[in-house]
């Protein structure tokens, strides 16, 4: 299926049509420089398990499992990575509920490899929510998309069986990297998995592409220092956007 990359012309028309900023009701306002079109802010799936935990009160644990872009390798560590910003934004959205977002990012891991550490890294913590950021390594390594989809589905099943809500996060956009890697098939697969399993897929790739097209972030920065600065700013926006989506999915 080619939904995500489907007909760039149609997608572009959608973006132009819906170029309004769309804050989710009740969500903390994301910084103004993180705006996305309404189409990308839409959340259809519900996180009913998390909603119950939020309503019940008490501390909440969220696990962010993923690769280098979860770990924040580019910006020198977890302090500037997206889970940090997510925690900050959720704490503001749910005052009085101590929220801890645990960063379980490990660089260079495929979906299959992450799946292997679900036991100790995710399930052992008995989290209310797991955010699974994956697909980059699979796309770079040209893993069979069916295997990628199967690994995703077994991970989701594993978490759902234990009553853990799941949010998937798709790949990062990079104009240059698309010259080398065919992300389309993997984007299609992860969104398809989300749809089939009723799981929200955070459209990181489409958002970053939008930011790049709108010249909000220069994703083709040249120097190391510029790169780190751009990465930090993008991670911050990702954290805030994701918080808004999670809050909407629990309403």
């Amino acid at each position, binding site marked *: 299926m080619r939904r995500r990359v489907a007909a760039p012309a149609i997608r572009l028309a959608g973006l132009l049509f819906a170029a309004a900023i769309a804050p989710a009701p009740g969500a903390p306002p994301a910084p103004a420089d993180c705006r996305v079109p309404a189409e990308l802010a839409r959340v259809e799936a519900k996180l009913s398990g998390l909603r119950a935990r939020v309503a019940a009160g008490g501390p909440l644990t969220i696990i962010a499992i993923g690769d280098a872009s979860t770990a924040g390798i580019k910006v020198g560590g977890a302090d500037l990575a997206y889970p940090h910003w997510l925690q900050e934004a959720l704490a503001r959205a749910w005052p009085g509920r101590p929220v801890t977002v645990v960063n379980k990012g490990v660089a260079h891991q495929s979906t299959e490899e992450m799946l292997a550490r679900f036991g100790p890294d995710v399930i052992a913590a008995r989290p209310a929510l797991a955010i699974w950021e994956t697909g980059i390594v699979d796309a770079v390594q040209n893993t069979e998309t*069916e295997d990628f*989809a199967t690994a995703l589905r077994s991970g989701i099943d594993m978490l759902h069986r234990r009553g853990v809500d799941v949010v998937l996060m798709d790949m990062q956009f990079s104009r240059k990297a698309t010259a080398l890697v065919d992300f389309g098939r993997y984007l299609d697969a992860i969104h398809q998995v989300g749809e089939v399993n009723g799981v929200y897929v955070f459209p990181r790739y489409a958002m970053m592409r939008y930011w790049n097209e709108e010249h909000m972030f220069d994703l083709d920065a040249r120097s190391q220092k510029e*790169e780190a600065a751009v990465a930090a700013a993008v991670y911050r926006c990702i954290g805030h956007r994701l918080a808004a989506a999670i809050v909407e999915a629990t309403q």
Partner: protein
Amino acid sequence: MPASPRDLRLDFFRGLALILIFVDHIPENILAYFTLQEIAPYDAAEVFIFISGFTAALVYGRAFEASGAFYATAQILRRVWQLYVAHIFLFVMFIAEVSYTVMTVNNPMYNEEMRIGRFLSEPHLAIIHGLLLQFQPAFLDILPLYIVLLLVFPLILLGFRMSVPAVLTGALALYAAVQATGLSMPAYPPGRSWFFNPLAWQFLFAIGAALGYGQVRGRAWTARSRALLPAAVVIVASATAIKMSWTLHGLWEPFPALFVKELWPISKSDLSPLRLIPFLSLVLIVATLVPRDTRFVGSAASQQLILLGRHSLEVFCLGILLSALGHFILAEIDSGIAMQFAVNAAGVLAMWLTAAIADWYKRMGRASPSPRPAAIEIGERREIGG
């Protein structure tokens, strides 16, 4: 040896498959919406492997009958060597292309991820595994499958001489074992396996070969297949309806994707029965309803596809390089619809031109008197199969 006229249907469908493979290999290509993979659970890979098995049996089966096992084996191994050299050439070109792109990619988000490209971090190992056909970068995975299948083909032919059903039963048993246990061939980097699992795909190749061998032996199988025609039509129609519903759902969300929860994903690596059975049904329909001497293979457009199919190795290799180049152009220069059409058109034109030149060269060579014995001449000429 009186050579029966070439079955043009084989060249026609192989030519078509070559174009589809080229188009499908260009990411974010609007024309890829109109290829087999969007309307059916199978794609051009099945067409290619089935026809390759059929042609191999036709060509080498005849060589076997005419000149014996040793000569046929030598001919097969010569072909394997040609394919291997072509594959290694593509491999080197691909590494050069990727290395160049990685050098020019300087991206805040991707430096970390790009490092997993093994060819750059451990080229000494990557090159060895490349030579062993274990390192298969994107798109360089179908030739290794074909090479391995052809390498064991002398044994298949020997088996056919004794009993075709016995060979097919063995192939089916291996295929079933793969489906049941997930058995696969190890690849590189460690932990990966062959994209096209030869232990599964050998079954389709063997089926094609058995049918081709039947033709060598002058056995008609289409008469019996007529009885199965209604079942085949039902299978192909439902498989197509399901797959098309998925494609339409992808384009327009309210359209329901039928049985997607139950059936998706369908393994291509292991040639899932959900791909194999509809594909074999399609073969049965085409073979039954499209006679050898059908008029449409004589049309001008069909002749061009036949030309492509007749020079499949050259055209295939070129197509792989061109689709990588097309990917690069679309990503780096312009990805607009006009550019997409231009890239597709230029690629198909280049493939056609290559086939036309190769054909002209071959005809010129054949026109001049050859000192070689006639049997070899026939063998060589028919050997284009593949």
